[in-house]
């Protein structure tokens, strides 16, 4: 089974609408990373969360970490076409001893103008 589950798998929203993407881990989270990827390209780092209850924002994107639920959410406010892409969560599930990350399958976001 997938260790890191993302939902939804894909999302189509109208420009200006808010949206939320979730990432749930089956293992203890020591760090949670959100990346954005354009099709077939590299990953662009968005945010890192380490502490339970931590919340970070950058421009119109906010990410939260719920340590008890082993879950993180990524919220985009007033979506724009520039937000379109694949959002990937990556998690450190071994306490950072080696720095390895496991990744979810990604959520594909399309924003209709």
């Amino acid at each position: 089974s997938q260790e890191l589950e993302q939902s939804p798998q894909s999302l189509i929203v109208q420009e200006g609408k808010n949206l939320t993407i979730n990432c749930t881990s089956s293992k203890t989270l020591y760090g949670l990373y959100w990346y954005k990827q354009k099709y077939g390209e590299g990953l662009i780092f968005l945010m890192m969360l380490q502490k339970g209850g931590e919340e970070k924002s950058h421009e119109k994107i906010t990410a939260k970490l719920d340590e008890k639920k082993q879950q993180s959410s990524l919220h985009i406010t007033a979506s724009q076409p520039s937000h379109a892409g694949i959002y990937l969560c990556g998690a450190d599930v071994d306490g950072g001893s080696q720095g390895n990350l496991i990744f979810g399958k990604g959520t594909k976001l399309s924003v209709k103008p």
Partner: protein
Amino acid sequence: EAGVAQSPRYKIIEKRQSVAFWCNPISGHATLYWYQQILGQGPKLLIQFQNNGVVDDSQLPKDRFSAERLKGVDSTLKIQPAKLEDSAVYLCASSYQPGQYTDTQYFGPGTRLTVL
């Protein structure tokens, strides 16, 4: 600050041929990672180097894949011979140095490999 560089960006080969990818990490980053990302999947770690030593290569198919990081800077990943299932994007990432908590990994643009 220059990001992670990778080349080539695209490569098309026939099965049973060999191919090599190159990565230059962010200056000063001790740790380098190679990931394989198959279409529709998240990246999967193939190998991790810290300086010029291998930290984790447990998911590297060693019968056909090899990687090296001579002098602890640039790295090459090789596939020989390639199979159809090796078609994927190969991503290189680097981080300053993992410590108690994982350092942020910064990714290159990737190399898209198509095996025919």
